[in-house]
């Protein structure tokens, strides 16, 4: 029991550190692509600590305070329900507890809490961003869910443990090779999940300056940042488990999540931005069709 608890705590701490570090690396990479020096790799830790120590005197009602907690809760639930390293039972945390559909629901739940909190803040920009974000979420959830269903039906299991275990017979047994179309759909849906361009309409820094967290300040903002970092890592680990055969060692885990994280960073630094209806049209047609192709193939 104690081992289980400490493993969960360590997982959360490690995921937070890794997520913040990845964020710093991504800022640096983006800066280099722009031809700038860019901030330190540790900049996100500094920002987080500074925000945590600032005073806070802004109040917008109960849901406003709950929203970052919703997000962090959702991220932690996803994090502890996915096995980290295959074969090391201690890192399986709570992965016996649910299946992939629960994970998708919890991911949606975190974003929904965030949307409610931002809506409660009453700032018009936050509300616009939330409406755009929910519209976009409803479109990428579709292709992602169909891709997950295709994989689950193909492997005859909805348990995330089972999906990981089915991919342990060498690289060719990874789902990205066994279900190439579904994987392509899921990877295209990964871009809007990470709010990467061309699907960055939610945070749109040009018109609705930073979107949902407009009214959040100091300590609440630091919670929101750590929630985003945790959620990012949780999504990375979920994707590695679903498509890239899980991780057979700690090194493999870090390498795989790092490479997967760099994919939206590199894509987003060279693309302009879709409008909401363009991004919805794209996500409903191309990734959904790709995922459906594999679903039909598996069903037949």
């Amino acid at each position: 029991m104690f081992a289980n608890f400490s493993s969960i705590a360590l997982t959360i701490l490690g995921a937070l550190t890794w997520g913040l570090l990845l964020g710093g690396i991504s800022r640096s990479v983006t800066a280099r692509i722009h031809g700038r020096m860019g901030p330190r790799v540790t900049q996100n830790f500094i920002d987080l600590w500074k925000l945590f120590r600032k005073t806070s005197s802004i109040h917008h009602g109960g849901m406003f305070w709950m929203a970052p907690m919703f997000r962090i809760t959702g991220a932690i639930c996803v994090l502890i329900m996915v096995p980290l390293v295959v074969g090391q039972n201690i890192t399986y945390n709570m992965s016996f507890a649910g299946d992939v559909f629960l994970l998708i629901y919890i991911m949606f739940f975190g974003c929904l809490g965030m949307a409610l909190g931002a809506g409660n803040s009453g700032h018009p920009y936050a509300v616009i961003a939330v409406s755009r974000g929910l519209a976009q979420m409803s479109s990428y959830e579709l292709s992602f869910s169909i891709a997950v269903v295709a994989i689950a039906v193909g492997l005859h299991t909805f348990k995330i443990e089972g999906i990981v275990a089915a991919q342990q017979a060498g690289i060719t047994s990874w789902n990205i090779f066994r279900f190439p179309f579904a994987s392509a759909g899921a990877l295209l849906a990964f871009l809007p999940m990470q709010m990467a361009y061309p699907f960055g309409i939610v945070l749109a820094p040009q018109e609705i300056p930073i979107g949902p967290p407009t009214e959040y300040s100091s300590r609440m903002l630091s919670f929101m940042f750590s929630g985003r970092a945790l959620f990012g890592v949780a999504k990375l680990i979920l994707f590695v488990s679903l498509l890239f055969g899980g991780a057979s060692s700690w090194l493999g885990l870090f390498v795989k999540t790092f490479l997967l994280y760099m994919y939206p960073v590199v894509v987003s630094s060279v693309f302009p931005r879709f409008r909401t209806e363009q991004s919805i049209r794209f996500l409903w047609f191309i990734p959904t069709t790709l995922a459906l192709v594999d679903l039909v193939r598996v069903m037949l």
Partner: protein
Amino acid sequence: MYCNQPPEKPGNKKELLEKITNMARANSLWVTAYGTGCGSIELRPLGTSRFDMERFGIAMRPTPRQADVLIISGYLATKTLKRVIRVYEQIQDPKYIIALGSCTINGGMYFDSYNTLNVLDKYLPVDVYVMGCMPRPEAIIDGFSLLMQKIKDGRAHGWKHYKENLDYYRENQKKIITDWDLPDYNW
């Protein structure tokens, strides 16, 4: 919700924590994207690859809720001062002000204007003045590094001074803003 008393001074136990926090504050200055005068045109190049303020951890934030630094960029009209006070008081503590250009120091070339205030220090607590008309981005970066040094040494107390001497500042502000309609406490 309102802060009715001056902030407490950090005791000896908090000294080390405060020092670490000051290091973090100095290396992560977020600027309110609010331009008051001609100088805000000199702030834009700071974000470009030539000057690149992000390497010092300086970033632009679109809302005063999340910012640390308010830059008064150039001449300040009485009408703008009203908005600036509102923005400044909505920034969460600790907060700093950098004032650019000779207009904020003594009025500069608008010293006899009917609408431009002369000495900014009477109305808001300025931490760092950057002189010039207008200062180039290099000079602004120099001002930022000065502010960073001040924060690291724990000498950037403009916001505390503002709270302790609120009556003085309010009196001066109300002298030139004749239709005062702000609340007496904005934070």
